[in-house]
């Protein structure tokens, strides 16, 4: 096993989720038990994927970590403090399925958005934006508007934006869901490269088994409503490269995740 699979030695917990349940519309006729008794600890610097059938609560779990919604029961601790505090401390960045770029801002201005909100001055913002553009290999496109970029390029900008203020924790909800398979594989490689460079903790929601397996140290498989953790599979593939996708280990992990999912999916 090589570097890819080893979390940094300090192994502090980036996220600690303790018997969390989430009920929407509590007490109303349209009550939904989205999550039920979730326990999950994510170590600092790991790349964790959440996978599960549609509606099983992946996004809800991610949003709980980001303090965009609050648990009905249980607690969410991020970097040793409450999720809300972490949000106010700007401890994490987010990226979604649709790139969510602001079409009225250029690429650079989009990347500068969080910095601007945090009150950075112009020169600092400029500098950081250039650095980020380099990271995602879009240096020439700083002055373009999002509509002039392809879907994959837009996603890279969104990732650059999420990373621009160096958050501790990156939350990504199906960021490549809208891309075609070829572009998607390409983006996966890029994200891994970025992850290897920055070693941020990444929580990544996806529907694609190969994607989850290719990217993460750990795949958390969820069962449908009420969402529970059905399996927690570690992926010992080592440093990824072109051949990983055709390796036996890759296919084995895929089969393992598929089995876990099929078992859960059968309740539908």
């Amino acid at each position, binding site marked *: 096993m090589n570097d890819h699979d080893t979390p940094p030695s300090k192994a502090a917990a980036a996220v600690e989720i303790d018997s969390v349940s989430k009920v929407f519309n509590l007490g109303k006729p349209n009550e939904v038990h989205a999550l039920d008794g979730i326990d999950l600890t994510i170590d600092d610097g790991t790349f964790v994927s959440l996978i599960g059938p549609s509606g099983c609560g992946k996004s809800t779990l991610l949003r709980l970590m980001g303090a*965009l919604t609050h648990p009905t029961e249980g607690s969410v601790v991020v970097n040793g403090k409450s999720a809300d505090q972490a949000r106010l401390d*700007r401890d994490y960045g987010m990226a*979604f399925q649709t790139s*969510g770029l602001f079409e*009225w801002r250029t690429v650079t201005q989009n990347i500068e958005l969080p910095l601007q909100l945090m009150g950075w001055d112009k020169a600092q913002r400029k500098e950081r934006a250039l650095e980020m553009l380099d990271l995602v290999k879009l240096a020439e496109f700083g002055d373009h*508007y999002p*509509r*002039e970029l*392809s*879907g994959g390029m837009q996603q890279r900008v969104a990732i650059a934006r999420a990373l621009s203020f160096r958050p501790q924790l990156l939350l990504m909800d199906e960021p490549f869901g809208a891309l075609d398979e070829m572009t998607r594989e390409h983006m996966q490689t890029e994200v891994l490269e970025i992850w290897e460079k920055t070693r941020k903790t990444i929580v990544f929601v996806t529907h694609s088994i190969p994607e989850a397996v290719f990217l993460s140290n750990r795949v958390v498989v969820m069962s449908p409503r009420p969402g529970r953790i059905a399996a927690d599979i570690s992926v010992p593939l080592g440093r990824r490269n072109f051949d990983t996708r055709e390796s036996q280990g890759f296919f084995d992990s895929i089969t393992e995740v598929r089995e876990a999912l099929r078992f859960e999916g059968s309740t539908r």
Partner: protein
Amino acid sequence: MATRDETARAIARHERKEAVRRGVRRVVVFLAFLVALALLYTGYKAFGESINDAQTEWPVIGRVLPRTNDLTMPPIMDIVTELGQPPQRNSSKPLAAFIAEASLFTFREAAFGFFFGMMLGLALAIIMLRSRWIERGLSPYLVASQTIPLVAIAPIVVIWGSKSMGWLPFDWQPWMSVSIIATYLTFFPVAMNGIKGLQSADPAAMELMRSYAASRRQTLLKLQFPASLPYLFAAFKLAATVSIVGAIVGEISGGVPGGLGRLILDYASRYTTGPSRLYASVMGAAVLGIVVFGMVTVTEYFVMYKRQEGSAAP
């Protein structure tokens, strides 16, 4: 990369040329159509007398056909020549100049009305954005407010304007009251589209702002407001012409001299002695309406062209 940029630019140039060509074609066709309408008007006049009889004979169509003689439908040439002639014998200023001055006057009233209506509409939209409760509570009354006929509020506004605006650092002019009347019509579409537009911000983008712990103000300024621009411009187009309507009605019922409303009322009140003057001033109002509509459209183009939808570069 360079060659791709070049072809992209060539394509953009071509598309711009195409757009201009289409625009020119549209204008030409429309002008031709206007000429056709003028011919229709004249032709209708020629058959007029016999059609007038039909008014009584044909039950429905007869009622829709205007009766015609030179008093009810002055010849187009009369209207054109009248434009070049002074409407008053003791001055040499041609009617066209009168209409132009009055249009400017009305434009000023409408412009202020538009501005304040825009502000008020946006303010209301932002208040309604605060809570769904307020939105539900307020919007029926916004709708109801527009069913109150202007003629009922115009005199009140004019009188109050002159009475209760003494505290202002400048002298309250009657035309400012007219601007307020224009405001009354203008704020409505802005408020209604404004709230829709502000709510149209992508929920994911809203969460993004929240994840940055952005303040309400920051979210409003950086996300919701820009997201609402397409809706707002649609409202502004409506508001622009409606502000002219408000100004004209305000002038007429508030007795404010100097603008198109007064001109129309004057020429209407002595219609029998010169119908073409009324026609000319109504056309002035039409041109003014089209001009302000055009102004908003051009502004929209410059504000929005960067984010026109286009397929992502493959």
